[in-house]
């Protein structure tokens, strides 16, 4: 039982990271109908920005803000350089372009900053707390806390603000949105910025646990992908639940079935979902149209 509780905590912690990255996938997919294969690199770049800013002597919170601002800028550049020129083409060239972008980003960081993995200190001095039989890592607690806040923020932003509604409208029917005077290109830009910041946030938060390395992005991104599918492509709540579910499945699978095949569980679950329930956990919201 103690064992299961401990596994559950870590599973949720790592799952929350998947969820944050998955959220970025979903937002971009809904707005542009494109799967952004470079989403994981956003996390990696942000973690490095954070390391650079901390090394430059900025206080932790200032470094945090600088890193997120940097991600916003990267979102702009990514949209203008990768997505925007290809927006009228089919999904395939765009997928390949995002793959190209991910290679470019990972190796640019390698070229600029070198291959050395880096340490990024966590927010808190104390590494964690012991609650009964379960040890709670403070960084995982923070990650879970931030994920909860983001779920609430997303709910508020997409459900309660007019801008959120405009973003939703754009993702549902671009032509109609433009007829109402909503600037579609601005909405897509905002989506890319927000997704880049979300991915960045995940990277910065997870860096103290997983360290900062060039590969950190791609490993997380593949799992986040699977989470996106399990949650039903294009569903915000689904992405978060899919991420958490995946984290838990993986951790328990590793503990009770096989450690080396840990990464395989994510993909087996994914294939099972694709074959038996391709619409994900929640299913499509939009009814069949005439």
């Amino acid at each position: 039982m103690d064992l299961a509780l401990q596994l559950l905590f870590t599973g949720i912690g790592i799952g929350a990271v998947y969820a944050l990255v998955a959220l970025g996938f979903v937002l971009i997919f809904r707005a542009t109908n494109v799967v952004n294969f470079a989403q994981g690199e956003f996390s990696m770049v942000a973690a490095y920005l954070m390391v650079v800013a901390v090394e430059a002597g900025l206080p932790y919170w200032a470094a945090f803000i600088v890193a997120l601002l940097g991600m916003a800028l990267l979102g702009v550049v990514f949209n203008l350089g990768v997505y925007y020129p290809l927006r009228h083409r089919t999904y395939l060239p765009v997928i390949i372009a995002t793959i190209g972008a991910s290679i470019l980003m990972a190796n640019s960081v390698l070229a600029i900053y070198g291959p050395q993995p880096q340490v990024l200190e966590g927010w808190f001095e104390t590494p964690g707390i012991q609650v009964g039989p379960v040890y709670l890592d403070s960084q995982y607690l923070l990650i879970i806390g931030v994920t909860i806040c983001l779920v609430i923020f997303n709910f508020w932003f997409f459900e309660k603000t007019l801008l959120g509604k405009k973003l939703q409208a754009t993702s549902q029917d671009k032509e109609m949105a433009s007829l109402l005077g909503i600037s579609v290109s601005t909405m897509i830009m905002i989506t890319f910025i927000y997704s880049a910041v979300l991915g960045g946030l995940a990277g910065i938060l997870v860096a103290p646990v997983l360290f900062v390395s060039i590969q950190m992005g791609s490993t997380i991104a593949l799992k986040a992908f699977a989470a996106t599918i399990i949650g039903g492509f294009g569903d915000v709540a689904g992405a978060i639940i899919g991420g958490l579910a995946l984290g838990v499945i993986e951790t328990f699978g590793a503990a009770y079935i096989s450690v080396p095949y840990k990464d395989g569980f994510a993909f087996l679950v994914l294939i099972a979902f694709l074959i038996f329930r391709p619409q994900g956990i929640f299913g499509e919201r939009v009814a069949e149209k005439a």
Partner: protein
Amino acid sequence: MKLTRRDFATGIAAGIAAPYLIKSAKAQAATLKIGMCAPVTGPAAESGGYAIKGARLALEAVNKAGGILGKQGELIVEDDQTTNPGIVLAFSKLASQPDIVGFLGSIRSTQVHAMAPDVIKLGKPVMIGGTDPNLTHMGNQWLFRCRPNDSYSGRVIAEFGVNTLGKKKWAVLHSTDAFGTAGGKALSGALEKLGAPSVLDQGYANQSQDFTPVVLAIKQSGADILGSYFTFENDLGIFARQLRQLGVNIPWVGSPSITNVTALKLAGPALYNTYGVADYAEDSSEGSKAFGKIYRDAVKVAPDNQSSWTFDAINVLSAAINKAGSTDPGKIREAILATRKFAGAEGEYNFDQNGDGLHGYNVVKNEKGNIVFDKHIEFND
């Protein structure tokens, strides 16, 4: 269609030929060349950097002392991208330069496996750092190992834990790559011989983000000592932290990576008081002390095995060429195999007929982040 196809073929041919022609044109300079495959890019790019520095430092010293066969030695480095296809291409690129007399291969066993067929084909000596025992036992006479192989590391870990620390309930943890699997097997085998078979033998995949299940398995197994083979420093760092956080404080004897600079930096206090077997330990001998000083002066980082083995490899190789008095591969091979009591950074080299130069390991202890030499265990078989 025909036309453009032919044009294209010509294009390819010209493209391939161009750099080759340019290279052969400037190949006439009066240096003696040693080729080196190293990971400049990819996941091991960092350690690749150290390896190149170690080799360069050795070569500088050799050159100052009169060079090789009277010529200045020159190091030609090709990037192996930390992948197997990468090293195959890198090595064959070096191999195609006829004036390279000897090579430094990889510290990764799989990569050595990948390049091995080409090594046989070429028939020139290649110094390697990969520690899979098979490498020097599969009939490839051109591979010479400048590190003790894993049959020794496993035996040393077992010997030290059982006889020095007096622990019998072992948990063995290893990565599932070639290095980890071979190491884990060697350690388990050695433990069985010592009458203390492991209570847990656990593999894990590289780049795991979370080790909670592994730590809990160790906890549950009731082991009183841990032996480990980690490949990547980030994995080691994450595991070390989680191990301590979840309250496992049993003694821990790890494979050489546990003493790596990067591992020490990443894991910090989580690795205090652990033991590691190290082919390189700064205080283990005069040779290693000397190398430590040169390396610290030049690179400003603490030396480790990534750089020490390439340092030794260059020294052993150039000494052997000088002794052979010729660049004939067969003569160099004989000279290397005849190397006895050669004091290197890693220890004393006594090559056996398989091409293994070292037969023992140092045990070191992490004392508040400093690696302190504990003892050396040497085998004669």
